[in-house]
């Protein structure tokens, strides 16, 4: 593994059994010009050198606003994108260096739940086929009867009528489809599930049910989650640790309670203050610190600290020096020179 001790430390605590280690992950998308002979004119730095660990049985939240690179991080971990630089160790194996064939057995262990329950299920396949297909490909269930039995079992586990196996996705509601997505992810008995905005497309009451289901499944099957979301209250409810991303960088990483009670990075502070309190009197009395300015383009991120153009406490140094991602308190990591 990497010999860089700062990176090793930067990833957070090394206590407990670590399942996933992401080291200095970079994902740049080339921007090309010219139709016949394309040439690269710039790169979108979607993920610009992030490192974190996920321990076995833990739920790590990855939060940030739209376009900060949280979904790209998830896609890199699934090997749906080939990372530009950096390493993703899963159980000691670097996923970025595996061939397609070597990756296949690991794909059974890493599953994903997508954001949009409407487009993540093939409209031409019955629910039963959708759920049993991974079992067939990974050969976890040898014969059709066993697969059929497991499909019904999984539907029941996810709170759906087993009769839905003969239905098409369009015959179901959004919440039901998301449960099918969860059942598909569980079909091959994975140990790690990436939830990419898994509840964002659902309305609040259904959201709560699906979150509870995810929690129950985690306890029942010892699952590890990477929970990508922009919804801070959902993350607070579900995650043990939370990483905050801004413009392709992780700016703060801490235990959930520590992060929410004692946010240190000015971006995290502003983010938490933006969450409305459902009480008009308190809400009115609260001081709002609105982040000024627009989010810079990831094609041309600002030098030094990426947050400095919008930061309230930035000094001249921030414009030049990239702040070190350091451990301010045990388990609480911040990328800001001013705290």
């Amino acid at each position, binding site marked *: 593994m990497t010999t860089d001790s700062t990176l090793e430390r930067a990833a957070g605590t090394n206590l407990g059994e670590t399942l996933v280690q992401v080291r200095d992950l970079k994902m740049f998308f080339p921007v090309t010009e010219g139709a016949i002979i394309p040439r690269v004119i710039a790169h979108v730095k979607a993920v610009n050198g992030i490192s974190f660990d996920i321990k076995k049985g833990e739920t790590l939240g990855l939060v940030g606003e739209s376009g900060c690179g949280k979904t790209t991080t998830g896609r890199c971990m699934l090997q749906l994108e080939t990372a530009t630089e950096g390493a993703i160790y899963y159980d000691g194996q670097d996923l970025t260096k595996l061939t397609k064939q070597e990756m296949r057995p690991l794909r059974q262990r890493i599953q994903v739940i997508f954001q949009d329950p409407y487009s*993540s299920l093939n409209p031409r396949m019955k629910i039963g086929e959708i759920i049993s297909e991974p079992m067939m490909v990974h050969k976890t269930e040898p014969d059709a009867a066993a697969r059929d039995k497991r499909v019904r079992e999984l539907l029941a586990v996810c*709170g759906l*009528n087993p009769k839905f196996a003969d*239905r098409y996705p*369009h015959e179901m509601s959004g919440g039901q489809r998301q449960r099918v997505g969860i059942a598909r992810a569980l079909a091959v008995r994975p140990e790690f599930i990436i939830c990419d905005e898994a509840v964002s497309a659902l309305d609040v009451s259904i959201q709560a*049910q699906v979150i509870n289901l995810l929690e129950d499944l985690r306890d029942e099957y010892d699952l590890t989650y990477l929970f990508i979301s922009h919804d801070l209250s959902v993350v607070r409810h579900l995650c043990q640790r939370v990483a905050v991303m801004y413009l392709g960088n992780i700016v703060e990483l801490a235990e959930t309670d520590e992060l929410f009670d004692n946010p240190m990075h000015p971006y995290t502070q502003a983010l938490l203050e933006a969450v409305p309190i459902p009480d008009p009197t308190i809400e009115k009395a609260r001081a709002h610190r609105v982040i000024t300015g627009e989010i810079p383009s990831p094609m041309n991120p600002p030098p030094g600290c990426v947050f400095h153009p919008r930061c309230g406490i930035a000094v001249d140094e921030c414009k030049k020096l990239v702040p070190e991602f350091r451990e301010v308190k045990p388990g609480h990591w911040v990328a800001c020179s001013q705290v």
Partner: protein
Amino acid sequence: MVTVSENLADAKNAELQDDLRDRPGLWKQITSFARKQPLGFAGLIVVLVFICLAVFAPWLSPFDPEASSYEHMLAPPGTTSDAGTFYLGTDDFGRDVLTRIIYGARTALFVGFTCAIVGATVGLVLGVGSAFFGGKIDLIFQRIMDIFMAFPLIIMALSIVAIFGSSIQNVIIAITIPFIPRCARVVRSSALAIREIPYIDAARANGFSNSRIIMRHMVPNVMAPFLIMLTAFVGQAILLEASLSFLGLGVQEPVPAWGLMLKNAQEYIRSEPWIAIWPGIAITLGVFGFNLFGDALRDALDPRLRSNQ
């Protein structure tokens, strides 16, 4: 909070109560298709009638399609002779028009189906493959398709027949080749959109092979444009075959073909119009029937447009 075991129990109860209706049977599906798509159903009937005519031609037709008879030349419809009644009249060789139309359905449907199925299927494979692999492969495929698309359909068919000679195989080749890029292009544009939909990502994240993703996830989802192209191609191919035969580059005498019958009718159109009218109606009805049926079939096969009522 609902636990997993409670969910299991709930589901068992739900199964007992069973508020979900079962899928309707085949007969119900057919009647519901007829009710919801009356025009399409009419098209289906026309198509079925033509298929029956083609299959049972020797039993249905009263005369030999190729035997000429000088006694019965240019007999008007309904003429009765000692050989039998010429319901639709006879042509300039004394051959029964009805018989030749029935046998002509064989030629038309054989050419129509062969060209449409081969052309659309090759186009489907090239289109989906091109979209799925993308990049350089896509670029090269599309430029080759552009070259084929640059020729107007009839000119392309004419030149192929002119080079290789006019036989039924060459007519089929001449009509099939221009169909391929047309289908490939339409299918590719649909497949490009489908490639970006999360269920393809879900399949890739699960490590499914390329062939499985193409066959199980992409091809079924481009079925709607494919079927429209296929059924439109059957109609177009019938029309093209008739055109080529009419121009003397298609099916040759004495094989019965609708286009050929029209060609021969040119000289007699003023005095004996039935020789031209009946094959004209056959061509029109055939093309119209296939197009109507194709549109309805697309709607009926799309599960998103289908309901159980």
